[in-house]
Each structure stands twice: as structure tokens, then as C-alpha cells.
């Protein structure tokens, strides 16, 4: 028998969606989040990038998604449920030359992933949109 002192809590997870016009990489994520290359936070956001890449379940080329087909159908096809807001964003950019990635972050992994998993964020610039507002599944 094992005895664990202290609090016992459930783990959390959260859905995320990234829509990128250009290549989505650590540099573009840092720019989006407002982190200078020489910032002491750079390593943390580089790790967030790695965790996002690791957490991607589905990658979509929205230029190849039929204009007749509702994106909601696609998400069901992949067995994922995105939030209504995320689906609206995907629908709005259907047919455009952008890529979308979605998956989830978990609080069971690194301290950095745990932090972002339990935070809510939605950021956008002219190249990238990221949504980590809620757990939608």
C-alpha cells in the first residue's frame, strides 16, 4: 500500500487550436506571445512550442478543405470535438492558404505545459492565431 500525504487532485487537460499562414515554429510563437529573443522567458515559450507540437492530434491544410463541407464534419471525422468558437475560426478560414493544428495540453506533463494547460489564452497576429481558451472535449 502507498500513502500519499497532502492533497490529491484530478489532472486537467485543455484543447488548443493553432491556425498559421506561414510556418508555425518556436520563433513565430515567441513573436505572437510578445517574447523577445533575448528574454529570460524565451526558453519557457520554446518549451511551450515543443509541447504544442507534441500535443497535435490533427493537422489540416485549410486550402484543401472543401468549401461545401462544414468544418464541424471534419472535426467529427477526426474524432475530435472543438469548441464552437474554434469551429467558427476554422470555418472562417476554410479554403484559405493556412494550416490548422489542434490537439490538447495536459497538466500531467511538464511544469510549463501544466501552467499553460490551466491558463486561458487567445492570441492573434497577422501570421498566427492560437486558442487555448477551454477544454472542448
Amino acid at each position, binding site marked *: 500500500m502507498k500513502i500519499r500525504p497532502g492533497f490529491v487532485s484530478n489532472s486537467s487537460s485543455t484543447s488548443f487550436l493553432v491556425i498559421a499562414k506561414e510556418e508555425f515554429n518556436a520563433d513565430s510563437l515567441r513573436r505572437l506571445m*510578445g*517574447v523577445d529573443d533575448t528574454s529570460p522567458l524565451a526558453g519557457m515559450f520554446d518549451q511551450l512550442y515543443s509541447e504544442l507540437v507534441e500535443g497535435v492530434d490533427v493537422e489540416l491544410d485549410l486550402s484543401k478543405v472543401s468549401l461545401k463541407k462544414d468544418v464541424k464534419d471534419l472535426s467529427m471525422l477526426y474524432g475530435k470535438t472543438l469548441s464552437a468558437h474554434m469551429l467558427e475560426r476554422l470555418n472562417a478560414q476554410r479554403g484559405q492558404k493556412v494550416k490548422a493544428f489542434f490537439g490538447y495540453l495536459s497538466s500531467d506533463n511538464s511544469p510549463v505545459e501544466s501552467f499553460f494547460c490551466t491558463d486561458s489564452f487567445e492570441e492573434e497576429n497577422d501570421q498566427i492565431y492560437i486558442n487555448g481558451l477551454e477544454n472542448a472535449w
Partner: protein
Amino acid sequence: MILSVERTSGDHRLYLALPRPITRDEFLSNAKVKPETYAWRMIDGMYRHIFESSLELKRDFETYYRLEYLDFFKYCRRRLRLTDAEAQQIAGLYDTSAVLIEYKRMYYFLRHENGLRLLETLLSEGNMK
């Protein structure tokens, strides 16, 4: 100096000793984040949590507890429930620190080594004891 205190109950606190208070602008400047972005809001929130919402120990002791505990070591030992060694470490910084802060419920990543290094940098290397 940052003293990290963790108990098996899950209670985790940081004690920060600064020779002078750091301003919000300095803290954000050390972070090298672009104004009004996610990272800026995150660091701004951290600053407010540390310097506006956390307990400043010297003020707390002098205002409310000097009569009860007589000296700062006893206040640390009995009021904050620090061990002898922890209380001695914090009490030893009383005279040379302008600010002694007990920081609880910190961002999760600050519980770990990389997070503590980040906090040290934000508080500025030259500013830390």
C-alpha cells in the same frame, strides 16, 4: 535571495529578500516582453501577485506582531511555522533587506528550478542579495 519552502502537505512558499523594492517597470523590463501581449500580461500578473498581494513580512511583524513575538526570528518560527534553519536564514536578512516577501500560490512553473532562475532574473541579478 529566494528561499523555497515546500512541505509534504503540498504547501509551497517562496521567501524573497530584496535590498530595495523593484518597480513594475523594472520587473517588466527585465522580462523583455512586448507591451500588451500575452507574456506582458503574464509577467504583470506575477508582479502584482508578488508586490501587491503577498505578505510583506517586515511590515507585518512591525505593525502587528512585535509585541507578541518580540523578535523577528520567533515571528518566523511560530507565526510562519518555518523550521529553525529557515527562520534563521530569513531573520538574518531582516536588517539588510528593504523588502521581505512571503509569496504563496505562485505560478506552477515557479515551483521548479527553471522557474526559480527565471524569477531571480526578473528580480534582477544586481538587485538580489
